[in-house]
């Protein structure tokens, strides 16, 4: 969930009202936000870098507010204030308009060349005219781009935003892609020119930018935008040029978004311009820009599309569980920036979805907004009449019953991880990894998560190793799933429910483990015997001590092994005492 940090006093000033922390927390809760933390720059610095570094830092109170991941329109102070003001009915949601250049001139034009197709094929653009920045507005503008980059833009992989002082450059602009050696410019906040290849190595150590290098690093061509004089605006998605950088004094802003996902690029552009057109001479207007595709197709951006959905009051009432008139539902929706009117036809409501609400893609999203405006906690809680009879999963029922009786038999239940290292299930058990039928994980952060376990035994032995100080004997069991490759399944693997128990003492206690097998079979109502019953017979298994291992058969079918563990297995799990174990598949007993 993204967190937006805003200055409390600035927020209250914009809201035209002061709140106590508790009151504001309540308002957030109701609206679906979360006042996560109340802090200050000084406090953050002091926590992260120590009191010394925090000396002299600002102690202006900051609110850190958690915003739902799909509400890009709330990712800055301007958006939060607008959303809350409309919600509190102190403000009518503004109407965003795309306008042509004022003096009847040509719109700014961005030409896309076909070279971009292989690396980053989409671009959209727009112009904010006669904007007035203050220090706070400027910072918020920069911060919003960062938040959008982290969220809807998926760390710049889907979309990258570039904002430029239009008065320092001249269109038409060209969005193309070139070999890294052929791109040369002075990047933002650097004092000299670099080639793109040089920049990539320069930013290898940059704490911020190095995270984006991989997006184009291995591409033969890098995306780049030039103005008509060959000035580099940006090399998306890495860095802008220094030449066109915006400042507090900037009046006219050219915004370009390059993308691998056009839908997301349009959304991103709409967010930037709707949130900051507030500060234009003519608020909430955005000057259009033309984007020309390699095939000559011409599009005007930003889209700023308003969409109308028609739904009935009855639909909302029935889904939410309330009983409101169509008029009052329309009013609720309007408070969520979804301007709504009763159409006059029955209880139909016409809902207008503004460009800021990209998250509204279905009637259910509208229904949720009606419920939020109504207040989740004002909805009457009622019990569904759904009549059903409960059933246990037979496998879990069997496991539950066996667990109880294994504990009654003096064994203590362990709960070990389903993921482990290759070594745990192979080398340490004196097995070859290829014969384990193990499922392998492709992206483990550490060796502990290399494979899904194929046996419960390593987990139990590790549990003993971690509890060597406990009095002997240690008697442990676990009934749980292992995972085995199985080509007959759609995913190529299946779980297998197993029962494993170990006895760890000064003597191996084979008879104890054997006795446990007899008890388990008794519980499962399987009598000793060769055909219809169960029996054990000598077997060789590399995990066990030679001559001290038997295979267990039930109704003629092999279900597992028991025996005294091989001394190498014992020492590889950092144990010192003899140990016997049983490991069986319980699925045949369903």
């Amino acid at each position: 969930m993204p967190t937006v940090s805003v200055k409390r006093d600035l927020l209250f000033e914009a809201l035209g009202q002061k709140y106590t922390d508790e009151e504001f927390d309540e308002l957030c809760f109701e609206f679906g936000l979360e006042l996560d933390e109340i802090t200050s720059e000084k406090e953050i610095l002091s926590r992260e870098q120590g009191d010394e570094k925090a000396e002299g830092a600002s102690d202006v109170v900051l609110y850190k507010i958690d915003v739902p991941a799909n509400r890009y329109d709330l990712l800055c102070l301007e958006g939060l204030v607008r959303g809350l003001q409309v919600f509190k009915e102190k403000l009518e949601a503004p109407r965003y308009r795309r306008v042509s250049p004022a003096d009847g001139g040509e719109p700014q034009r961005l030409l896309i060349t076909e070279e971009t197709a292989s690396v980053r094929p989409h671009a959209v653009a727009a112009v904010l005219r006669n904007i007035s920045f203050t220090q706070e507005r400027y910072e918020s503008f920069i911060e919003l781009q960062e938040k959008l980059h982290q969220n809807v833009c998926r760390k710049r992989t889907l979309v990258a935003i570039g904002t430029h002082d239009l008065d320092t450059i001249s269109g038409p602009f060209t969005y193309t892609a070139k070999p890294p050696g052929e791109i040369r410019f002075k990047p933002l906040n650097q004092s000299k020119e670099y080639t793109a290849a040089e920049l990539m190595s320069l930013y290898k150590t940059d704490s911020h930018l190095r995270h984006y290098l991989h997006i184009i690093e291995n591409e033969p061509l890098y995306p780049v935008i030039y103005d008509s004089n060959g000035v580099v605006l940006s090399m998306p998605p890495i860095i802008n040029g220094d030449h066109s950088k915006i400042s507090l004094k900037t009046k006219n802003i050219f915004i370009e978004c390059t993308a691998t996902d056009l839908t997301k690029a349009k959304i991103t552009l709409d967010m930037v311009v709707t949130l900051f057109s507030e500060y234009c001479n003519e608020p909430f207007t955005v000057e259009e820009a033309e984007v020309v595709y390699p095939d000559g197709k011409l599009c005007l951006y930003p889209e700023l599309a308003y969409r109308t959905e028609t739904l009935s009051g009855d639909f909302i009432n029935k889904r939410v569980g309330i009983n409101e008139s169509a008029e009052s539902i329309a009013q609720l929706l309007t408070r969520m920036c979804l301007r709504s009117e009763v159409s006059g036809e029955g209880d139909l409501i016409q809902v207008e979805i503004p460009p800021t609400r990209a998250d509204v893609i279905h009637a259910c999203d509208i229904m949720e907004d009606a419920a939020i405006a109504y207040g989740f906690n004002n909805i009457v809680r009622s019990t569904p009449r759904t009549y059903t009879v409960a059933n246990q999963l037979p496998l879990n029922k069997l496991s539950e019953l066996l667990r109880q009786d294994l504990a009654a038999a003096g064994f203590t239940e362990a709960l070990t991880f389903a993921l482990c290292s290759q070594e745990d299930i192979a080398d340490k058990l004196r097995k070859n990894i290829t014969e384990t039928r193990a499922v392998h994980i492709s992206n483990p952060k550490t060796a502990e998560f290399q494979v899904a376990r194929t046996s419960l035994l390593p987990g139990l032995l590790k549990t003993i190793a971690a509890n060597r100080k406990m009095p002997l004997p240690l008697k442990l069991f676990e009934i749980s799933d292992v995972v085995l490759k199985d080509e007959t399944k759609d995913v190529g693997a299946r779980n297998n429910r197993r029962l494993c128990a170990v006895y760890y003492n000064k003597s191996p206690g084979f008879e104890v483990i054997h006795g446990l097998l007899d008890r388990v079979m008794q519980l499962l109502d399987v009598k000793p015997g060769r055909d219809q019953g169960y029996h054990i017979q000598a077997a060789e298994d590399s995990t066990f001590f030679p001559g001290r291992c038997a295979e267990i058969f039930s109704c003629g079918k092999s279900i597992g092994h028991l025996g005294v563990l091989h001394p190498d297995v014992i020492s590889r799990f950092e144990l010192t005492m003899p140990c016997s174990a049983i490991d069986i598949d319980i699925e045949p007993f369903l």
Partner: protein
Amino acid sequence: MADTGLLESLLRLLEKVDGGTDSQDVAADLGVDHQVIVGAVKSLQALGEVISAEQKSSKHWELTGEGREIAEQGSHEARVFNAIPDEGLPQNQLMKMPSGKVGFSKAMSNKWIRLDKAHEGGPRVFKTVETIEDAVRDKLQLVQKGQSAKLEDKEKNELKKRKLLSEVTVKSYWITKGSSFSTTITKQETELTPEMIASGSWKEKKFKPYNFEAMGVAPDCGHLHPLMKVRTQFRQIFLEMGFTEMPTNNFIESSFWNFDSLFQPQQHPARDQHDTFFISDPALAQQFPQDYLERVKKVHSEGGYGSQGYKYDWKIEEAQKNLLRTHTTAVSARMLYKLAQQEKFTPVKYFSIDRVFRNETLDATHLAEFHQIEGVVADYGLTLGNLMGILHQFFTKLGITKLRFKPAYNPYTEPSMEVFSYHEGLKKWVEVGNSGVFRPEMLLPMGLPEGVSVIAWGLSLERPTMIKYGINNIRELVGHKVNLQMVYDSPICRLDS
């Protein structure tokens, strides 16, 4: 044990007195050391209610070793006086006596004797009086007879200063008859034996009392794991509420069922390598229900069912990627798809409690695998109010009655609600679960009827268990680093108390 003769003497003595007696008096009466009587009292106490004895302490004056010597032989000054013949004694000879030095100066100050320093043959000591009264000896003899009360405090302190008397604290017992007082002693038995039961001899025997302060012997038994005990209770709650258990025994899942079928877009951050464990072998899933897969693809990339869709290029390759399921909702999706294939829809209530996996950063409360508890209800016409109502019932069974709901975001539910409960200890609202109504973009492609709503909620099993058993570090609870003593000692689990 003190010898039976002494014990019986003590008891006979006690029989004669009314109201009880002091052990010191008993010692004096029986003419034995007080410590012996103390031992006898303890032996009698061990027999049960024969006597009752209350410990008390008293101070009394006692002669020191030197004091006793004086009481016997007279004070040093008296001894000096008596040693001097009428013709006197040379001083150096007198000083050689054991009492010489002290006796000389005391006798001098008492004016019993005089010193003639000019006597020929050296200084010589002469008596000055005919007879003396040895008051020190008399006083000490009084104390010795137990009549120290006849002396004044000043006199006693004077003698204490001379180290002839000392004040001692004596711990003694005030002994009274017990409820089963008798003057004869019966030997105590430690335990009831089969022979006693057979012969009936237990009726005459006295049994040594048990020490009820001591702990018993721990039973030789096995123990269930606390997390599994809590799981059993949650399972029980769902069964009580009429929920059927889902088959969640498939840790390996395809991205298709884990994400795509839930209308979670392919660029969603949860599908990132940083958040999800992907499988390298077997890497890809096969055999999807083909027409359903096409509907899923369409609703993602183009929309439909009243939805705008996400409008991106949906790829089968992405859906095929196998992973360790990140939530049990993948199983709910499979179950709901299966339900939709029924000829006629029937309402269902499903639950599961099983492991899920996240490739996340680990800390004191987060592991790469944890147990998810999930409840799902599918029926015609379910409302958000119904979801809140059922959550209220569910949490009431956990002993949580104060609930409120916060709007939230989840890619596959709309509306989505975070469930908060009021924590009396922390005096604030804390998040206890997540819930929502499954999106139509998830349900309709499966083939569920239009009017059917599916409500669902989820929470982790580990968090309520850690709270219940007061465990701060999750590693002490789950995995091989578990503290077995904690497992041994953990009480039974009743979630509502």
